[in-house]
């Protein structure tokens, strides 16, 4: 194997890669997935409580609510507009604050405050908003709360937001798509277009070709995973442990990618392989999403040995010393799979030429 020839092959792939829709998809995928995660899971499953106010005076309630984080506040121009707003479920709660309401509260006159709840609002949001408004009213009245609320979390895992729980799944997705698909796709393209045969009558060897595809796949995989983690705010805390985990994952996925690439003779076969077998590779994710399942089953999957460290680091705050053993197992699996590529590549070469 020659470093110069490997670099030449990588340069060629890079030149071609930016003209391939598949490689371009791999490059933009972390951004698309993160966007989907933020929009769908954060906005849909963890929506912020929404309040709409019509203030006919200049109530301090409005300014107090404007200072509160974690809610979305909007203003209506009239009482009718507010009612329409609520009817259309554009806000969870509507408040009409009459002129002189604040003064009446301060005078202890107990004025009426009407809540307009949207039929489509979540009960949790109604409770949050109601308590919040009561708190603000107490602030205006200059009264202390009669009780002190102490927050205690129950099952730690249950308190992790879904969007964050999904981060290991997204990174695995990026690992599988980039780590497996890139080297496999590049190999299959060379075979399908006959260019591999053209390469093999130059000083380039099969080892040069395999190594160049794996190296390009590895570099892209690590880069895309780090970008994904950064976009999802999961890179802080244990960057070195995360990097080690991603490296181990990339080694395993690249080796699987080379196996796919040597076995598949054309793109159609490759897509079939990816579709049928990648579901199995993503298996460990099920055990994190559904914690009631017997966890030992997850260890059967080769991907478990880097997904579990990833999960532990990103969600449980584990450090390198907690995960290094599993990462060694992942690397060993990757190396064994890489060794298995050697006889497969010989078979591939023979089939290709005959």
């Amino acid at each position: 194997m020659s470093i110069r020839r490997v670099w030449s092959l990588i340069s060629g792939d890079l030149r071609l890669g930016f003209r391939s829709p598949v490689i371009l998809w791999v490059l933009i995928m972390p951004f698309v997935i993160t966007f989907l995660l933020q929009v769908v899971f954060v906005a849909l499953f963890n929506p912020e409580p929404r309040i709409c106010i019509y203030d006919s005076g200049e109530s301090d309630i409005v300014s107090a609510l404007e200072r509160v984080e974690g809610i979305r506040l909007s203003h209506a121009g009239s009482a009718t507009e507010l009612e329409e707003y609520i009817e259309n479920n554009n806000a969870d709660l509507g408040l009409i604050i009459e002129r002189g309401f604040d003064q009446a509260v301060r005078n202890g006159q107990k004025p009426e405050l009407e809540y307009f709840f949207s039929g489509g609002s979540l009960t949790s949001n109604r409770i949050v908003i109601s308590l919040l408004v009561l708190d603000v009213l107490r602030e205006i009245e200059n009264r202390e709360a009669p009780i002190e609320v102490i927050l205690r979390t129950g099952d730690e895992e249950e308190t992790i937001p879904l969007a964050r729980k999904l981060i290991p799944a997204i990174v695995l997705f990026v690992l599988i798509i980039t780590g497996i698909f890139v080297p496999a796709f590049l190999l299959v393209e060379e075979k399908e277009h006959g260019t591999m045969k053209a390469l093999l009558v130059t000083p380039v060897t099969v080892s040069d070709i395999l190594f160049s595809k794996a190296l390009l796949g590895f570099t892209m995989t690590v880069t895309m995973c780090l970008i994904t983690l950064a976009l999802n705010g999961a890179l802080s805390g244990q960057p070195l442990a995360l990097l080690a985990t991603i490296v181990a994952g990339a080694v395993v996925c690249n080796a699987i990618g080379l196996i796919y690439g040597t076995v598949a003779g054309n793109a159609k076969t490759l897509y079939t392989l990816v579709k049928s077998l990648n579901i199995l590779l993503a298996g460990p994710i099920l055990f994190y999403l559904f914690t009631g399942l017997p966890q030992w089953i997850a260890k059967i999957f080769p991907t478990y040995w880097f997904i579990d460290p990833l999960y532990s680091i990103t969600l449980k705050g584990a450090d390198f010393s907690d995960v290094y053993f599993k990462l060694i197992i992942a690397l060993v699996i990757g190396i064994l799979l890489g060794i298995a590529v050697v006889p497969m590549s010989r078979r591939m070469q023979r089939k290709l030429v005959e």
Partner: protein
Amino acid sequence: MNQSLLATDLSYSYGDLKAVRGISFDLKPGEILGFLGPNGAGKSTTIKMLTGLLTPDTGSIHILGNEMTVDDPEVQARIGVCFEEKNLYLNMTGRENLKFFSSLFGLKNYDTDTLLRKVDLAQRADDRVSKYSKGMRQRLMMARAIINSPDVLFLDEPTDGLDPVSSRTLRNVIKQQAERGAAVLLTTHDMWEADELSDRIAFLNEGKLFAVDTPDNLKMKYGKRSVKVRLGNGSNVRIELAAADAGDRIKELINSGNVMTIHTEEATLEDIFIEITGRGLDV
């Protein structure tokens, strides 16, 4: 060094099918050896063995004094191969294809313009190959094959199905390569091309090599020594040159003033191939 290539007792089978059966030949620097044979004769399989793509079942190959094995970068750096199928990078331009392959041979700052001019592609050098015609792609394949100024050049049906202009361009390139000193092995089933280009012809049929000689010697050996005289009344007279009265008969016909044309009855390579193998070249 007398031989650029020496193939000894080469055989290869695809399962039960024996594609090449114990063939031996050699190739000298500057020589063009035409492998003539119909489809399925074993020409492409022979080239695959000679270029290190296939390992022969039996026999040995020596190129420039080195034994050829599969994946041998040192030998492969000194050969050039032009395949029958068009295997170029379609999403690269013609120039990028050549730059890329020059980098694989370790050639720095390679002058692609000269090479592209040689195959009449300078005007389309920066177009993607996917926009090239069949003839243009084949010319680019030829340019790629000679990018490293190979000592041994293998050409597998290089002009098959091309227009006359592209074919002529490629034939000129082949001649230039031989003049430069490259040994050229050319497979074709076009007997006219083989006759025009080859210093020696090898007939290959069903994996066996039947005759290896110069075109003239083959014609002498297997052709008929006769002339065909066409007369003014539309009839033809054949005169065997070996006959004792051949000279007198020709003189007599000419003196009669009735002769329209006289043609030598030299055998074509196809005639010789049929005579030797019992089958045609286009089978």
